[in-house]
């Protein structure tokens, strides 16, 4: 939020413009936050399912025992 409105009440048009600007900013902020939720969820899934760096490839462990 920036400067106060010079200590005078807002006109109806100014109030409408202010509310419209706030709504637009809120929408964008909501989209960004929603995107971050999805991104962090995806990162978490990737991290959880990732194999440790030097883990043996699938199947090799059994082959060694047979």
């Amino acid at each position: 939020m920036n400067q106060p409105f010079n200590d005078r009440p807002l006109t109806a048009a100014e109030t409408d413009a202010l509310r419209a600007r706030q709504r637009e900013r809120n929408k964008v902020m909501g989209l960004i936050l929603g995107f971050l939720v999805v991104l962090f969820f995806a990162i978490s899934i990737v991290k959880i399912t990732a194999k440790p760096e030097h883990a043996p490839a699938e199947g090799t462990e059994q082959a060694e025992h047979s």
Partner: protein
Amino acid sequence: MTTANPQALIMPADWRDFFALTKPGVMRLVIFTAVCGMLAAPGTIHPVLAFTAILCIAVGAGGAAALNQWWEADLDAVMKRTAKRPIPGGRMDRTSARDFGFALSGISVMTMGLAISWLAAGILAFSIFYYAYLYTVWLKPRTPQNIVIGGGAGAFPPLIGWIAVTGHITWMPVLLFLIIFMWTPPHFWALALFVQIDYSKAGIPMMPVVAGERSTRWQILAYAAVLLPLSMTPWFIGGTGWIYGLSALLLSGMFLWLSFKVGLRTSAPGDGMKPEKRLFAYSIFYLFILFAMLVADRFATILGLQA
């Protein structure tokens, strides 16, 4: 608070102005070189993590750009090229820009650290500090070598992209850093030659203003001459194949040729500064294609088209 039009600040700033603070134009090159650094690196990275790393690099660059505009609002106000930016244009107050810049920087570094690696996050944090403080606050107003040092800030993205994949620093990402580092002075001084009146008005010691046109032209040529062998070094050390090597030779050869035309001439009033404008335009094309060829070279090697 210093703005050109404080009366206009009765509204909260538009989100588009916040977006403009991140310098989306510059960000294109940042994203492109970071993606190339990532694709050219030997190794693999999960697509979600690759996307996250690129996003962090881009958001970090945006944060640094916002901090730069917060600090330089007074200077931007007196230059025609920058007078319409959100703060000097009176559409945003400085505090919002500062907070936005710090928030983007912090979020990008933390996310990079948690999702990718703390080495990549550390270099990203240093690159933001380098641009927002070392360059913007400290060196830009003090030395005509500002662009040489500032070039380092733009050189970090491919380095970070590469390290996000490999997890460690080797000669190849350092060479990519050095290529952009050496490319920046001739690229920017070509621009500074045809907008130098603006810089002298703002009191920024840009090379053509301080050292004069003659010296700037010689230095453009000198950097272009160093860039030619430097851009080919990844090939010489075996980091790339001949596809990149020959491309670098041709592209840098052309760069040197255009720099010759700028370096050896003396401008006359009203001559349109065509060679300088051509060099500036070519320098952008040069970097895009050079890095694209780096990626093409890597894919050609993977597909067995070259040794």
